[in-house]
């Protein structure tokens, strides 16, 4: 075997990891719970607990071994399960809460950070299981620590279920009210989707879709800091050059995901699903998507030109990443969560970034209105209207959009909320004072758009 190591390559890799916050954001193991159904609730609890702890029992230790072997941090080890509204469709609301608590216990026992899949897919209407699950969400999320929930209320193929949208407005508000003493943390663990992907490794929206295998390993990479540094180094680069620089960097970041995913898959003897190409920021300084946009030449993220900058970034990340991995999936794009990104928080604080601008930005990047604190007196109807806007963007543009809003009970625009850890903290953002009540209460479904007729 020849030894061909370029000094520059070794130094660059080390610099990316140690100075620019390159890490593997998450290894997420998807586990099917379709075979855990049982009419007897206590038996079902046992089956769910046993299956998750059996499959994910080694996830954390294997993750730590791989991290030590390659010298790259793996921040989160997580589990996603079959949407509970499908796996436990026969249960009532009270029993759904019991399942959430079992998921929580299994997560604690396995040592993982989060477990996703307390979920329902209701884009075209509710089953009795869907209704029971949705009604259980506020209690389930406020009485558990690790459980994450998501509800898909629209798709490009089905349109938007506006009854579900209104219901989710109410559920988000209730989540925040039940955990008002913790700045509404339950709402931070709940995502409302349009076009939800079935193989997303990122929380809070991860679930194990019904088209997925028995078990699977999906990997989410990170690295806004690495991209920000490269962009900063070349202030003179024109847009073609800029795009190429980002593509090359995204390639390298994604290769790490591919390497770690394959290694984890082999060690755990579980098939490797996908690498999610997302640029996921953290509250750490220098790990910000807003900083990338500002390094491109914007005085502040949120000013005029931000949408164009984000569009270029998002596209270049996908182009670079797609080449680096055999299977790409999940959300794959730049995330713009507010509380989890120090640069976004600053941009809000100086008045550069507003809710309306964030909505525009979600047209050209991954996900949507994410980790945004709203005034505590926001109504369920206004929350529903915000969800509807975001879902419409997803439906028409054939992309995933999501909403994770946290009503800050007792707080007004400009005050701060703190969630801690990776969730960060953020200023409460202003909303429009005009009502949308009549609109969101019409009921029924917004029909699927003409672009859905692709056959």
């Amino acid at each position, binding site marked *: *075997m020849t*030894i061909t*190591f*370029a*000094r520059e*390559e*070794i*130094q*660059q*890799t*080390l610099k990316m990891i140690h100075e620019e916050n390159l890490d593997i954001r998450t290894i997420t193991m998807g586990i099917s719970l379709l075979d855990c159904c049982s009419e007897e609730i206590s038996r079902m609890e046992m089956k769910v607990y046993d299956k998750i702890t059996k499959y994910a029992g080694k996830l954390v230790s294997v993750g730590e*071994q791989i991290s*030590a*072997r*390659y*010298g*790259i941090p793996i921040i989160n080890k997580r589990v996603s399960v079959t949407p509970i509204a499908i796996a436990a469709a026969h249960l009532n609301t009270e029993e759904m809460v019991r399942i959430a608590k079992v998921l929580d216990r299994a997560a604690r026992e396995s040592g993982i950070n989060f477990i996703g899949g307390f979920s329902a897919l209701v884009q075209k209407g509710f089953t009795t299981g869907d209704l029971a699950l949705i009604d259980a969400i506020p209690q389930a999320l406020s009485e558990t620590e690790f459980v994450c929930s998501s509800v898909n209320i629209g798709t490009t193929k089905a349109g938007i279920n506006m009854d579900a949208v209104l219901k989710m407005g109410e559920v988000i508000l209730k989540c925040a009210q039940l955990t008002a003493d913790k700045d509404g943390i339950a709402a931070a663990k709940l995502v409302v989707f349009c076009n939800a992907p079935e193989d997303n490794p990122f929380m809070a929206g991860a679930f194990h879709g019904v088209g997925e295998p028995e078990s699977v390993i999906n990997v989410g990479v990170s690295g806004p800091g690495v991209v920000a540094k490269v962009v900063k180094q070349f202030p003179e680069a024109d847009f073609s050059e800029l795009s190429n620089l980002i593509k090359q960097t995204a390639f*390298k970041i994604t*290769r*790490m995901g*591919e*390497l770690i995913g*394959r*290694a984890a898959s*082999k060690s755990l003897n579980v098939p490797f699903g996908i690498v999610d190409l997302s640029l996921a920021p953290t509250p750490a300084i220098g790990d910000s998507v807003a900083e990338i946009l500002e390094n491109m030449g914007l005085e502040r993220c949120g000013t005029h030109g931000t949408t164009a900058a984000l569009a270029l970034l998002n596209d270049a990340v996908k182009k670079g990443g797609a*080449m*680096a991995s*055999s299977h790409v999936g999940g959300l794959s794009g730049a995330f713009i969560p507010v509380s989890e990104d120090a640069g976004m928080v600053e941009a809000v604080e100086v008045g550069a970034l507003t809710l309306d601008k964030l909505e525009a930005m979600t047209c050209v990047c991954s996900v949507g209105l994410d980790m945004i604190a709203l005034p505590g007196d926001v109504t369920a109807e206004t929350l529903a209207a915000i969800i509807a806007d975001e879902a419409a963007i997803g439906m028409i543009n054939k992309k995933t959009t999501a909403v994770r809003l946290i009503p800050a009970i007792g707080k007004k625009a400009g005050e701060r909320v703190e969630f801690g850890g990776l969730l960060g903290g953020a200023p409460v953002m202003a909303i429009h004072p005009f009502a949308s009540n009549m609109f969101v209460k019409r009921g029924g479904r917004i029909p699927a758009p003409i672009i859905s007729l692709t056959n």
Partner: protein
Amino acid sequence: MTSPSEESNRAIITVLGRDQIGIIAWVSGRLAEYHVNILDISQTIVKDFFTMIMVVDLEPATLELIELARTLDQEGNDKGLQVKVQHEDIFTFMHRI
């Protein structure tokens, strides 16, 4: 596409820190003790700042990569040096197809 060379047991050792007498003697002494074979070594000193990159083979070694990494990291810390031991794939995989 290259697959992770799980069968390979080669690692890259990097040492960073202020230059001092005996850095290479210490690392190579430790490696000999654990039967780790040195395949390649290069070092530079820029303004008193020492950088060494070593390619080693752990095939004949008496300890695992992770244990070697832990040992050198701890002992390096005491000497004011940052020492990393990483499987070679992290470097080959990142930069090459």
